[in-house]
C-alpha cells in the first residue's frame, strides 16, 4: 500500500485510536525495536563503555570515585606474569577447542542430516548441552571430574585401570586440567556448530554430490572438493560463534579449575574477575578484559562482512 493511501484511511476514519497508531510502521517499528535497543545500550553498551573508562583509571570496587591515570593500568597489567599466562591460555584454549569443534561438528552435521530411525532423539541429545546454561553444565562437569566423586574414576576402578581409592586428579594435573577445560568448551560450543553445519549441509543440493559421484569422485574427493568448499562459508559462521563463546568465557574455568593447578588454566575472563571484582582492583580487571576486545572486534567485522555477502553460492 502506498503512503498517501494509508494516511487517507486515517483521515476518513477521523478518530485516531491506538490501534491506528500501531498500524503505522513508523510508530510500530521503533516501538518493537525499543526493548532490544534498551537492552543493548543498558546491558552491553554502557558496561563496555565503563570498561574502557575504568581501564584508564585507578578505580576500585570499594569507591565510586576514581582518577584517570592514562596507560599506567595497562603497563601494570602487561607486566603481570599471570596475565601473560592467561592471555596465552585464552588464545590456545580457543584455538584447540574450536579446531576440535570443527572436526566433530562436521561429523555430527552429517549424522544430524542423515536419515535413520530415532533421528529426533539423537538430535535432541546432541542439542541438549547447548540448551544448558554454561554455569550449570560446568557444575555437572565439576562433579564428573571431582577428585573424590568422579564417576570416571569409579569406572576406571571397576575395570581395574586404576586402583580403587587412588583417583586420577582430572583437574589437578596440568595437562588433564587443560584438557578438561578445553573439552568443556568444545563440548558446550559443539551443538550450535553442529546445527549450523547441519543447516549448511542440507543447503547443499544433493545432486551436486550425486553428480560428483557419477563424475567418478570417491568419498574423500567429494568431501574435500565439493562438500567442504560449499560448507566453508557457513563453517566460518560456526567458528566465529565458537570463538566468541570460548574467548570471552570465564564460567568454565572459574567453576571447573578456578584457574588452577597454579595458574595453568587461568584465562582472561577468570583473571579479570579475580583481579577486578574479587580483588577489588576494578581498573586492572577492566584492563585485562580490554585485551579480549581486538579479537572480538575482528570476529565482529568478519561476521558482518559475511552477513552482507549474499552471493555465497
Amino acid at each position, binding site marked *: 500500500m502506498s503512503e498517501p493511501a494509508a494516511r487517507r484511511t486515517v483521515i476518513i476514519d477521523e478518530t485516531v485510536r491506538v490501534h491506528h497508531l500501531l498500524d503505522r510502521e513508523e510508530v510500530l517499528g521503533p516501538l518493537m525495536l525499543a526493548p532490544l535497543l534498551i537492552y543493548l545500550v543498558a546491558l552491553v553498551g554502557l558496561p563496555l563503555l565503563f570498561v574502557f573508562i575504568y581501564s584508564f583509571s*585507578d578505580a*576500585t*570496587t*570499594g*569507591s*565510586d*570515585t576514581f582518577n584517570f591515570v592514562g596507560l599506567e593500568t595497562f603497563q*601494570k597489567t602487561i*607486566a*603481570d*606474569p*599471570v596475565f601473560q599466562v592467561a592471555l596465552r591460555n585464552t588464545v590456545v584454549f580457543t584455538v584447540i577447542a574450536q579446531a576440535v569443534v570443527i572436526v566433530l561438528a562436521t561429523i555430527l552435521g552429517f549424522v544430524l542430516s542423515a536419515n535413520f530411525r530415532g533421528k529426533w532423539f539423537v538430535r535432541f541429545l546432541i542439542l541438549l548441552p547447548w540448551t544448558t546454561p554454561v554455569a550449570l553444565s560446568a557444575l555437572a562437569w*565439576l562433579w564428573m*571430574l*571431582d*577428585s*573424590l*566423586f568422579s564417576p570416571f574414576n569409579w569406572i576406571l576402578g571397576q575395570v581395574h585401570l586404576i*586402583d*580403587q*581409592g*587412588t*583417583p586420577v*586428579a*582430572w*583437574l*589437578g*594435573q*596440568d595437562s588433564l*586440567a587443560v584438557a578438561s577445560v578445553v573439552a568443556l568448551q568444545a563440548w558446550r560450543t559443539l551443538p550450535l556448530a553442529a546445527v549450523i553445519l547441519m543447516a549448511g549441509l542440507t543447503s547443499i543440493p544433493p545432486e551436486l554430490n550425486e553428480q560428483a559421484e557419477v563424475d567418478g569422485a570417491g568419498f574423500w574427493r567429494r568431501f574435500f572438493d565439493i562438500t567442504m568448499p560449499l560448507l566453508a562459508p557457513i563453517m566460518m559462521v560456526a567458528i566465529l560463534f565458537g570463538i566468541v563463546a570460548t574467548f570471552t568465557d570465564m564460567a568454565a574455568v572459574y567453576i571447573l*579449575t*578456578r*584457574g*588452577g*593447578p*597454579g*595458574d595453568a588454566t587461568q584465562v582472561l575472563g577468570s583473571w579479570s574477575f*579475580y*583481579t577486578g571484582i*574479587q*580483588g*577489588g*582492583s576494578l581498573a*586492572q580487571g577492566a584492563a585485562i578484559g580490554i585485551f579480549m576486545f581486538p579479537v572480538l572486534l575482528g570476529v565482529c567485522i568478519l561476521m558482518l562482512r559475511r552477513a552482507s555477502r549474499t552471493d555465497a553460492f
Partner: protein
Amino acid sequence: MPGVDKVGADLLARKVTRRDFVKTGSLLALGATSFPTILAACSTGGSPSKSGPKTLKILQWSHFVPDYDKWFDPWVKAPPSQYEQSTVDMSDVVKQVEKKYGKQLDFARLTNFNPHTNRYFGFTYSFAPDPGDYRQSFFQQVGMANGPTSWEEMLTATAQIKSKTKGAVRGGIGFSPEPDSNMAARALIWSFGGSEQDADSNVTINSDAVVGAVDYMARLFKQAETAEVFSWNAASNNQGLVAGSLSFILNSISAYRTAQASKPDVAKDIFFSKPLSGASGVKPLASEHVIQTYIIPKFSKSQDVAKEFLLYLADHASDFVYQSKLYEFPVNPNTNAQDKLYGQGGWLDSDPYKSDPASKLQVLKDATTWSVNVGYPGPASPAIGEIFDKNLLPSMMAAAARGQKSPKQAVADTETQIKAIFASWRQKGLVGGTK
C-alpha cells in the same frame, strides 16, 4: 549473588522482646558466617524525620546448608577492607561494645580497623577457629593417636599412612585457588616464622622462612599427597576427610558437625589438633577460619538503627555461640559467652552437642591465643584482600610443588606480584607501609 540471603527484619519496628531477639538472633547466628554482612537500614514510608516503623535490611551469607555453602565461601572469607571508602565509621559501636565487654582481640581489631586511615570500617563480633582435623584411626596406625603437633610430624604421619594404604588415604593440605588453601598456606608461613607483611604493612614475603615453608609444602605434596590438591574447592577437604580418603586437614569444626548428624561413626573418629609448629622458637599460629564483620554502607538511610542492632548482637554473644554449635567464638573477652564457653566444665569441656568424647573440643579453649587475621602481623587491607582473592600464596606453593619453579624462584616471583598490588593500593591511600 547465589547463596546470599536478603533478610528483611523489622527488628526495631516493634519493641524487641527478649524472645523476639533470641528467635531472630538464632537465625542470624546460624546464618551469620557471612563476611562481610551488610546492614542497610532504611525507613519505609513517611519522611525520614518522623520516627515511623523502620525496616532493617540485612544482606548476608546463608549457612543453613553448610556443605553446600562451602562452595561459596570464597565470596565471604575475604576481608571487606576494599569497601572501606564506602562504609560508615563504626568507631562508636566498637568503643561502646569494648566498654562493656573488653577490648577486641588483636586480630579482630586488625580486621575491622585500618590503622593507616585510622578508621573502623566495620564491626567484627565473632570468629571461627581453624584447627587441624584428623582421623584418629589412621594416625593410630602410625603411632600418633593424639595427632601431630608439628608440620614435620604431620608430613611423616600422612606420608606413612599414604604408603600403608597404597595411596587410598592421603594428606589433605590444599594448594588450590580456594580459601582453605589460602589459610593453610598462611598458617604454615607464620609457623615457619614468615609473613606476607609486617605490622606496618611493608611487604615481607621474600624471606628464608617463607622459602622454607614453600619447600616444606613441595615435600608434603610429593610424599603424602596427589595432584588432587591442586583441583580442590572449599568443600573438597571436608568431603575427603569424611569419606576417609584424607587423614589430616585444616578446617573449622563445621565438617565435623555435619558428620555428627550424617555419619556418626566417622564423626567419632575425627579429632582436632592445635596449630602445628614449624621453626623452633616460633609460636604456631592458625588463621581465623571465618571472621564476622558487619559493615554499614554510606547509602544506608537509618544507620543508627543498624548500629543499635549490632549492640543487641554483642549483648547476646552466648546465643550466637550456642546456636552456631560452637562454630563461632566472640572477639571480646568479657561477653556473656565467656564463662559458658571457656569456663571450667563449660561448653568446650563438655560439648552440649554430644561429642564423643565430650571433651573433644577442649583443643579450642585457647583458640584466641593462636588465631590471627589474614595479613598478620599487619592489618587487613585491600592489598591483603586482593592477594587472598587472587590466590597468590596457594599458587606460589603449587608452582613449587608442581616443579615449575624452585621454592626460591616461586617466592621471588610472588613478591613481585604482591609488591605491585601494595603499590596500587598505597597510591589510593588505603594501605600503609613503604616497602
